[in-house]
């Protein structure tokens, strides 16, 4: 059940009305019921994995807190981490690992082959497993107290607006919210609706429209010349942002309507002037998670290695970040490419600072911004093209099969589509800028008259109705 479907609209309408009609003491129960229905709507058995994760981590959280001496605490924490990671590895990476083991067997002419395992990736597993790992970690380091109310803990992990693609919400931010009773509040519901509407616009008007061209090129790179692949890469960068930030806006909006404030995942990533800066603005809940739970502990442990300890921590962090997206060498290499960029920025900080003092600020910032976005776009080739060979072929084509001829582009974009994409993208980037500066779409709109607000809403609604692309395009991050 995707957010931009009629089924979800009906589901949420019922949940929303019931949520504010029942006693606030029972709201967490309704959230668990609604989330269970939401999860089971796709594949009913997905709920079982999540229930095991909930029960296991509920117990380990309390046991880590209770355990004495510290050695026992550490043992329970280690056990919880190993089990959680094993669940993720089993469901997400097992066949990738087996494929590589079999490849090694065949390389060494070993007469053995391990059969693949038929396993479905449970909905949102990458997101909730990361949430429980950090939950136990925070308890182990006594940053947080364990949650003793099983229902509240379950609602934290199951909460349907964020279960599928995040944000990866920290327990410390979410659990206090679930404890406070929620009353219908205009100040939450209206901004929530605004976010949903805006997210829907980004998804169906911009992302899905671009997808019709990028799918064409990236599913068949061998038949396209360099310029087509280059343009498709640029378009995919916008598509991914519109798709994922559109999803996030909708998730945040839905949660807000139910009285929850989730963490935003984006802060104008295309205004970043370095890849390090970019990761502080893009998929923030994931990048801050890997920073807190991988980079910081690893770099602290490798202090003795000086700057190479940092580079090592960066490598580990970005490889895990890349692999988190999916079980393939493409995603691992995507992480490696980001390690290279961030390590380069770290190692050349002094030189770059000197340059920035010599070159006029505007020019320096513009060039840095362009290079950052271009590099990110380049790495997305490994993110989007399904096979590693395909990604390498796409890059080879960009460099060695490049012509400026527009006639054979084959992107299948009509003039009407091009205008909608360009205008939609400009509006999206301008509004994001405005949103970040003024503190939110709701604040911006609250300053306007009622008539203006309604006209604005109608403009978005009719744009979605007339220019939206309606089909079966799922949100890109649903696959992770």
């Amino acid at each position, binding site marked *: 059940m995707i957010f931009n479907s009629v089924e979800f609209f009906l589901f949420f309408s019922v949940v929303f009305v019931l949520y504010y009609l029942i006693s606030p003491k029972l709201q967490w129960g309704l959230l668990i019921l609604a989330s269970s229905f939401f999860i089971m709507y796709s594949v009913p058995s997905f709920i079982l994995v999540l229930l095991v994760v909930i029960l296991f981590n509920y117990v380990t959280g309390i046991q880590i807190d209770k355990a004495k001496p510290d050695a026992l605490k550490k043992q329970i924490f280690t056990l919880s981490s190993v089990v959680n990671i094993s669940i993720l590895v089993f469901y997400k990476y097992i066949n990738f690992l087996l494929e590589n083991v079999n490849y090694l067997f065949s390389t060494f002419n070993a007469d053995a082959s391990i059969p693949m395992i038929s396993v479905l990736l449970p909905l949102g597993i990458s997101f909730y497993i990361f949430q429980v790992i950090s939950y136990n970690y925070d308890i182990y380091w006594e940053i947080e107290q364990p949650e003793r109310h099983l229902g509240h803990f379950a609602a934290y992990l199951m909460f349907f607006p964020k279960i599928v693609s995040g944000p990866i919400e920290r327990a410390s931010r979410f659990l206090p919210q679930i404890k406070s009773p929620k009353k219908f509040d205009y100040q939450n519901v209206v901004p929530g609706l605004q976010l949903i509407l805006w997210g829907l616009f980004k998804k169906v008007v911009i992302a899905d429209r671009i997808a019709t061209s990028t799918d064409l090129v990236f599913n068949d790179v061998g038949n396209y010349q360099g310029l087509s692949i280059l343009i498709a890469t640029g378009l995919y960068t916008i598509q991914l942002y519109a798709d994922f930030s559109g999803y996030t806006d909708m998730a945040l909006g839905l949660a807000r309507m139910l009285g929850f404030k989730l963490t935003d995942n984006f802060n104008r990533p295309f205004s970043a002037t370095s890849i390090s800066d970019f990761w502080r603005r893009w998929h923030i809940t994931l990048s801050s998670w890997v920073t807190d739970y991988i980079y910081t502990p690893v770099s602290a442990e490798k202090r003795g290695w000086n700057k190479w300890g940092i580079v090592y921590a960066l490598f580990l962090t970005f490889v895990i970040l890349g692999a988190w997206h999916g079980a393939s060498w493409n995603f691992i290499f995507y992480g490696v490419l980001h390690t290279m960029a961030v390590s380069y920025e770290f190692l050349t900080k002094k030189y770059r600072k000197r340059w920035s003092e010599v070159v006029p600020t505007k020019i320096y910032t513009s060039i840095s911004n362009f290079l950052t976005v271009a590099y990110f776009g380049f790495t997305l080739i490994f993110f989007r093209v399904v096979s590693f060979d395909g990604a390498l072929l796409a890059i080879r084509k960009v460099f060695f099969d490049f012509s400026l001829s527009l006639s054979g582009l084959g992107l299948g974009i009509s003039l009407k589509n091009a205008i909608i994409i360009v205008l939609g993208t400009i509006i999206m980037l301008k509004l994001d800028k405005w949103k970040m500066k003024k503190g939110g779409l709701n604040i911006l709109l609250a300053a306007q008259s009622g008539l203006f607000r309604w006209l604005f809403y109608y403009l978005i609604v009719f744009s979605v109705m*007339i220019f939206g692309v309606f089909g079966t395009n799922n949100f890109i991050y649903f696959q992770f």
Partner: protein
Amino acid sequence: MKAFVKKIILFSLLPIIILVSINYFYDPANLFDPEFSYERSIANYLNEGWNVTNVGNMDERMLQKYFIEGMKTAPDVVVMGSSNSMYIDSSFYPGQKLINNAVSSATFHDFLAIYDIYESKGFKPKKVVLGIAPYMLIHPTNDFWLSYKEDFFDLSDKIGIEVQIKNKPDYIVQWEKWKQLFSLSYFQQSVNRMFNNKDIHITHQQFGEGSTKVNDGSYNDGQYYLKKSSSQIDVTVKRFIASSTNEFSGYTEINKEQKELLINFVDYLIAQNIEIEFFMMALHPIYYDYVSNKYPIVHIIDDFLSDLAKQKNIKVIGTIDPDQSGLKNSDFNDYCHLNLNGFYKTFNIYD
């Protein structure tokens, strides 16, 4: 909360009213016309000798029924098939009266139903051209033929074939129809119809700006297709390959029900002393390269039809493999539809 709900309802009224009314009144698929007046009027014009342009979505089966029922004289040649066969017009069989009854997404059920309408009318053609698209032999049937299911069952009873239909309950059919009033993709087509006048026009010209239904039942695409360059079509084909679940995917053998229908229908026509021709449509070279390497069923279909034709002494026009008919990329409108030039080559009109 009451005030909020009231406000939301009030706000939603305008978009919903606009959505529903435009979908209802501009109705691009003519769903909300129980009398089939659109189909009836086109059939009447065709029978009066007019060509009809700007033909839009309709129930093609009902059009065929009204078209045949309104005919005054029997045709010599009847063409049946899917959209791939719609270009076959009278010029392909000079000196004979040809009627093309091809319908989109045809199955062999359509062949039987159409032939039965001719029989009920007391018309017996001398020749029947069966345009067979590969999918017809492997896919299970669709629901479109249910529009004239009485005609189908009339002939299937005569032929002695028992066909079970898995009818959807009426309330589901009605729900699927009425929910289009709220469909946003239907709304986009309705808006398109609103701004591009889609009223049908009658003419004596065979090629119009919009699509044209010719009075012999054949069909011509409008300028949209005619203006498409070969490279644009290549892009469309690549896009189709990249984005769709392939029509051959998952099929390893000929569908038993379809096979039985075709063979029994052919035998029935032969028994009636009616000459049969098979028209096998070629696939676009890019598409053929892709599917012929990936899906062995393509060759199974080809062999089955060739063997059947040999066995029953049926003339075969065209092949699935475009090379064998000397067809190039420029002879196609998309991945499986020949353009007029492609048809002329296949039917050796140039020779």
